[in-house]
């Protein structure tokens, strides 16, 4: 079986066209909801974050032990979580559904199981 690369290229280009919401690293305004998320090897608390579509939130991320990552690619939201510091990420949930967030800094034996979900409803 020989796979042609031209049709593959077209299909892959089409699949790449979806874009997500945005996140920026700023402090919360007084009106914005702040959600504290605590990381430790190898989980997040909470590991399910429930949001409303179109309602921005600021995630305040801390770690109890080593440097961790927080990455929610569907919302282009990520941050390094450094011990002793608070990382803040503003997230605007622009679509409903269940989305994965993961640790994207290799942190040890349980790194590949360190994840959670963002649930966005209307």
């Amino acid at each position, binding site marked *: *079986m*020989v*796979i*042609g*690369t031209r049709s*593959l*290229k077209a299909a*892959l*280009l089409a699949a790449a066209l979806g874009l997500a919401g945005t996140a920026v690293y700023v402090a919360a305004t007084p009106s914005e909801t702040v959600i504290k998320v605590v990381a430790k090897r190898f989980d997040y608390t909470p590991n399910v974050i429930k949001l409303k579509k179109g309602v921005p939130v600021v995630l305040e991320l801390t770690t109890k032990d080593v*440097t961790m*990552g927080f*990455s929610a*690619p*569907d919302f282009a939201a990520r941050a*390094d979580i450094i011990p002793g510091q608070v990382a803040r990420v503003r997230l605007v949930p622009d679509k409903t559904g269940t*989305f*994965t967030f*993961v*640790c*994207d*800094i*290799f*942190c*040890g*034996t349980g*790194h*590949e*199981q360190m*994840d959670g979900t963002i649930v966005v409803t209307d």
Partner: protein
Amino acid sequence: MKGPIDRRQFLQLAGMGGIVFASGLGSSARAAGKAGGSDDFHFVQLSDTHWGFEGPPNPDAKVTLRKAVAAVNALAEPPDFIMFTGDLTHITEDPRERRKRLAEFRDIVADLRVRNVHFMPGEHDASLDQGKAFQEFFGATHYTFDHKGVHFIVVDNVSDPRALIGDEQLQWLAADLAQLPKDASIVVFTHRPLFDLYPQWDWATRDGAKAIDLLLPHANVTVFYGHIHQENHHITGHIAHHSARSLIFPLPAPASQPKRDPLPWDATQPYKGLGFRSVEALIAKADYAITEFPVQKG
């Protein structure tokens, strides 16, 4: 299948579940069954052996790597060289155990009859000590070599636990590429995908786009990588990216299930989804024909 595997059997295997993949933008003379050029050669890619892993996803973990070594040794036409694209060993947080696993891996693959063998780390080997133990056994984590007119570049996107290539290595890559003509035949080996395959499962390199941008001005670039324990074929611009199967357990297709947990071992089809590949470099066409080989039960 026992005994040597010749070129005709390569293609028979393709009909039995192996795949011959014509990489790049040209057509493949070899895949079409025509005679190749006299300068053509092939190499073997093995990936994600995870020596030291124990668990239900592979109850035969202690022998799988040895079976792969035997299968490579059984090829009728020995490859010109062999490339291991990372995760030679399974993660351990004990530095002594890490070195023990690296030593055991080294001793097992010493049985490969082809002596020209190249190694690079995966995050399981290198991310917890920035590649220190790996370098003690196998040397540099990023380097280049040339073979029969093809320039091979090994890019390390795992020694930094943030999945970064890093500015220093990117500068090294830029300097290396600057010495090459724009039509040079270039093959890049990495562990993680350079593009955002599925960052929801950490299947990406955070600054991989910078490496791709450096490579794009070159007309003939192909990337072979590991990490995701399955075949995946992707194009960025004119650059083809081909991931390899694992030799420990297969992982699910991107986004095919909620979590990236290993696919369960199937006792009725041991080693299903595991394997290695032969890559035939078709020099005149700057193209590559990929043949996937399973790990055999015997």
